[in-house]
């Protein structure tokens, strides 16, 4: 047992830190830390910086110009970039589609698409969820009918994150209604500028439109855009979902959130002393910090096992639940900390370069917004209810 990084891992961590110090634009980290809206150009700028260093394909093997990092190195990279306030790597092309193409795509697809993901030619979005399906993914109804050298796609996808920026979408579509719902699903790559596609924003309770509905009406998709075999898409979809799960614990986000919480609660005064000195508030902060200390170690245990080649079991479901509970509690405490100033909501303040002054402390509005926005953490990526089901199935074997 050894809780410390090896010398090699420490050296790697220092290298990441040095890179971030030199290359992460402060304009971007200020926006991230201040809870401002990131634009498409912001993400593209950061992707290009990472790609120039060869650090964009974090989960990719070297043969596809990825980093070839193991689980511990990926963890160190995530930890450091999050702590530094770097924008996240937009995962749809890099962490979702990329691995699927590498494993199931044709050579032509690999050669064409993988470099375009790294160099930013394509912005992918995800066409998995449908209205009425939710956690019951296999019940999807968006349909693709073969017509000569094309599929004709009709139907609707929803919760498509950042779909408004994308020029490509990978979709699960129904190509057959026979057999079990899981059979008859295919995995299609679709141009977002195809005639018949319409993207409609969904405004969430925090006032933001980061997710969308995508409507397909007689959209023609060349058959060479099919990944793998027709009606075998469920296998690829499940493979993708396991890759979606990297950094499921969100330790870095939680640490950043906790330190912001402590700073804010150190500035807010209540009854003549900083709120953080109030025992009732301090107790809640300490409680979540203690939980996070333990969860971070659970995360490392899982990462070390993965780096040693062990397949993860129900651990990632445990990390998903505990990680989201901790982050949501930090969000709730931060909202509590800002007091009466949690109420004002002036959307334009979140835009870079806005002239609008914040109402009350600068941290107040983003705090409320993050609280509402992060209710999603326990809903998406397999709701916490689905994760509890996975955990109990694994141990009860019933």
């Amino acid at each position, binding site marked *: 047992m050894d809780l410390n990084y090896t010398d090699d891992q420490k050296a790697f961590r220092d290298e990441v830190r040095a890179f971030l110090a030199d290359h992460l634009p402060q304009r971007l980290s200020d926006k991230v830390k201040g809870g401002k809206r990131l634009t498409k150009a912001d993400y593209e700028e950061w992707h290009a910086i990472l790609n120039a260093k060869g650090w964009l394909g974090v989960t990719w093997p070297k043969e596809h110009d990825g980093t070839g990092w193991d689980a511990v190195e990926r963890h160190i990279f995530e930890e450091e970039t999050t702590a530094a306030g770097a924008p996240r790597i937009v995962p749809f092309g890099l962490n979702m589609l990329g691995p699927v193409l590498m494993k199931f795509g044709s050579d032509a697809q690999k050669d064409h698409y993988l470099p375009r993901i790294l160099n930013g030619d394509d912005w992918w979005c995800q066409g998995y*969820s449908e209205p*009425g399906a*939710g*956690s*019951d993914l296999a*019940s999807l109804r968006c349909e693709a009918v073969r017509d000569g050298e094309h599929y004709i796609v009709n139907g609707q996808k*929803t*919760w498509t994150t950042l779909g408004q920026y994308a020029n490509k979408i990978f979709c699960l579509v129904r190509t057959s209604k026979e057999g079990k719902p899981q059979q008859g699903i295919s995995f299609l790559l679709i141009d977002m500028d195809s005639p018949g596609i319409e993207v409609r924003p*969904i*405004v*969430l*309770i925090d*006032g933001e439109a980061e997710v969308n509905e995508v409507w397909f009406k007689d959209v023609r998709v060349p058959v060479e855009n099919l990944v793998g075999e027709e009606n075998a898409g469920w296998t690829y979809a499940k493979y993708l979902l396991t890759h979606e799960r990297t950094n499921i614990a969100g330790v870095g986000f939680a640490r950043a959130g906790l330190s912001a919480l402590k700073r804010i609660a150190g500035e*807010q*005064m*209540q*009854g*003549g002393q900083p709120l953080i000195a*109030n025992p*009732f*508030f301090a107790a809640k902060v300490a409680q979540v910090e203690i939980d996070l200390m333990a969860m971070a170690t659970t995360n490392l245990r899982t990462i070390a096992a993965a780096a040693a080649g062990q397949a993860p079991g129900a651990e990632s479901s445990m990390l998903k639940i505990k990680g989201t509970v901790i982050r*949501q509690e930090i969000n*709730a405490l931060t*909202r*509590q900390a800002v*007091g*009466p*100033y*949690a*109420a*004002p*909501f*002036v959307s334009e303040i979140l835009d870079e370069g806005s002239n609008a002054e914040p*109402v*009350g402390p600068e941290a107040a509005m983003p705090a*409320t917004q993050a*609280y*509402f926005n992060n*209710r*999603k953490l*326990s*809903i*998406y990526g397999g*709701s*916490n*209810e689905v994760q*509890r089901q996975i955990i109990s199935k694994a141990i009860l074997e019933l």
Partner: protein
Amino acid sequence: MNFQLTEERQMLQDGLRRYLSDTVTPEAIAAATDGATGLDAELWAGLTEMGVPGAMFTEEQGGFGGAGFDLMVVFEELGRAGAPVPLIESAVLAGGILAEVGHMDLVEEIIGGRIIGFAHGEPASRYDLAHVQTRAEKTDAGWHLTGAKAVVQHAPATDTVIVSARTGGDVTDQDGISLFLVPTAELHMRDYPLNGGGRAAEITLDTVVPDSAVLGETGAAYPLIAAANARATAAQCAEALGLMETIKHLTVDYLRQRKQFGQPIGKFQALQHRMADVLIEIEQARSAVINLCGHLDTDDCDMHVSATKNLIGRAARLVVEESIQMHGGIGMTQEYALGHFAKRLTMVDHRFGDADYHLERFIRLAAA
């Protein structure tokens, strides 16, 4: 011991519920929130016509209610509808103080629908009622008010605002606080929309008001403010209860209708049991509101304010978080009704003291 509403209150409740369910639409709320005044003028006129502001005052004061349970009936219905209206500000806070100091002409106008604001909280006061930095200096012309007031709800809809300012004492002293009636036009306002609907403003003061603007005795306003605040807290807790009731109905309907894996999700036992816990806490919230409204005019009022505000704060968080979680993604969209109610209910903990603030106060009061 009797938990039935009187016939009058039952009629008021029925009438209000009907009227509000016909009148308060998401569009109307959004229009008021994003509009200039934060007021749905038609709704306010309708409520006034039904006598709603009058229900906040006793017959002696020119109204036809004024008891804790009158507040409960009215605000529970406003909560059910999710309607942001300036009733707490104008009738309970400003009106309560005006009635106490004998300004019955203004009370009559408030009952008739006039909106008078109440600017007391400040950027640094958080939930401390005695924390007043705004100063009032005696001049030849009257009183010179300087300072800043924070998150003054519904200020843009007022023509006049009651402003608290310090005529003596230190920043957190209870003694030395005075109240002034100030025309809204004399204030510098920066107004903005609120999470959960309605508008508020940051107010900057640098104005001289005549001696006649003073309400009651100078330096002795704290008890007036505290008493009005207790009633306002009761009103807000009743509103929170109404919000919970609507969220409950939305969630129960959703659990019954939404199908997954071939059956309504309300058939899943894990959700059933969690829904049961939510229902229990909503009943607790109702009892807490009854306790507070039933003790508003007793010596135990302060203790019940803190007990109830604490319980409401905790129950609200559970109700909001569980209802969104049970809805899944749809619960997070602005288009679906839940979002508005969830946000409005969440904001309850950010006014008049949060759950922890009142827990601490309850302990202090119980030990005294």
